[in-house]
């Protein structure tokens, strides 16, 4: 059985300030994946 989200997790998911930092991290993660894809496609 999966756990339900805690009150704090639910707050963090919707808090604009916390999510702004998550947005920056997600950008980093996704753009590094895009770059990795590009590197792989040009090295094969």
């Amino acid at each position: 059985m999966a756990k339900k989200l805690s009150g704090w997790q639910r707050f963090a998911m919707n808090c604009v300030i916390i999510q702004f930092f998550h947005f920056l991290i997600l950008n980093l993660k996704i753009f590094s994946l895009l770059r990795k894809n590009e590197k792989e496609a040009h090295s094969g």
Partner: protein
Amino acid sequence: MARVVVLGAGIAGHTSAMYLRRLLGKEHEVLVVSPNSRYQWIPSNIWIGIGKMTREQTTFPLEPLYKKKGIEYRQARAVTFYPDENYVMVEYVAGEKKGQQEKVEYDYLINATGPKLNFEATEGLYPGRNRTYSVCSYTHAEEAWKALSELIEELKKGKEATIVIGMGHPKATCQGAAFEYILNVDHELRRRGVRDRVRLIWLSNEAELGDFGVDGMLMKVGRKEMHSSELVQLVFEERDIEWILGAGVYKVEDGKVHFETLDGQNHTIEFDFAMLIPAFSGHGFKAYDKDGGDITDKLFSPKSGFMIVDADYTPKPYEEWSVDDWPEKYQNPHYPNIFAPGIAFAPPHTISRPRKSASGREIFPAPPRTGMPSGIMGRLVAENVVRLINEGPDAHLHGVSMGRIGAACIASSGYGLKSGSAITITMFPIVPDYRRYPDTQGRDLNYTIGHWGLAGHWMKYLLHHMFLYKAKMKPFWWMIPE
């Protein structure tokens, strides 16, 4: 002078055409043949399906763009292939020439015709019939929203309803899109204060939640490791969404869906609204040699109808599958001047474990080829064609398989600058590589992550604008990755 013909102006074909035009000199011709007059950013159809976006926001007309950029365009569909003589027969679908056929010659052919939405494979399944809908095209998504908004009005008057969302065929794929739609429908029903009157059901051919046609995945969520099945279960439990797994839908009647589950039991659910993704197949193209002999099996897989490329199609059991089975150059082995990027290529096998029900029905997801890899393949193929044109047939061609590229799926779970949310999943590689990543179920956890929250919605919104900017070939479009 060379002539490159691109069939299809979806993510793969349009990306190929853009790069061909950018990289090839003006003496070479790039011609796109596609029945759609507008380019559509398909991932945003979800937002059309809940009334948050219009077709004007997710599509744009192709002809003016192609004219401006020096790309030839025919609003037509490919019908028959003559690979020995390097031409395809196409049939116009609009304008004065509607219904007429024309011979289109090529030096290089890029078949990026994507999937046929094979509604016929499931009895009674067709968008707008029997209360079932689809979000696979913007017109389907518009119909879905019209029906859903009418149902919402009835719910406001006190009606209770059942909504079923998921897979409309035992071997359908694109679970990510249906997952995204169910979460958006849930969000919309809550926003309108009618969620408590609705039983919302996820109906899928996946054996486990979070399989997504890629055999599920271990991922990093924050600092913890979590399986995609746990993440999806958490999301569904939070949202009070029921789920039925291992379900092979075989028939739809007015407000009734019939399916068999992996244990061999047959079931029927009554519903008021359903969005069920159909099976995907090839378009049923035929190919002929110089003497009129049927050589369809040299170009297209008899099983799926998709184009045969440089994959290893030798049948083997799941335990023996490897990333090496997957194609790298998307090039037909019999006709090296023909390529098939995106959904148009025949995969060697599925990614999820094949399963049969007790009665022998095959119930498991077909392999997805999502937008990101389709764009990468489209570009790779274009660059290889440019190498062949500039350096001749011995040019070194680059290759990258789905075992060496990753994908991102941002499943929007609510629209709104402050109230939106999304489940962001990135994975690398798409096809698990158990040799390279033996301890993490075939995936690199530095690039395989899960996130749930408002930030994902912003990310999806940003990508919507970024990829449409790129598709419109606005200044420096080529700096934006696929």
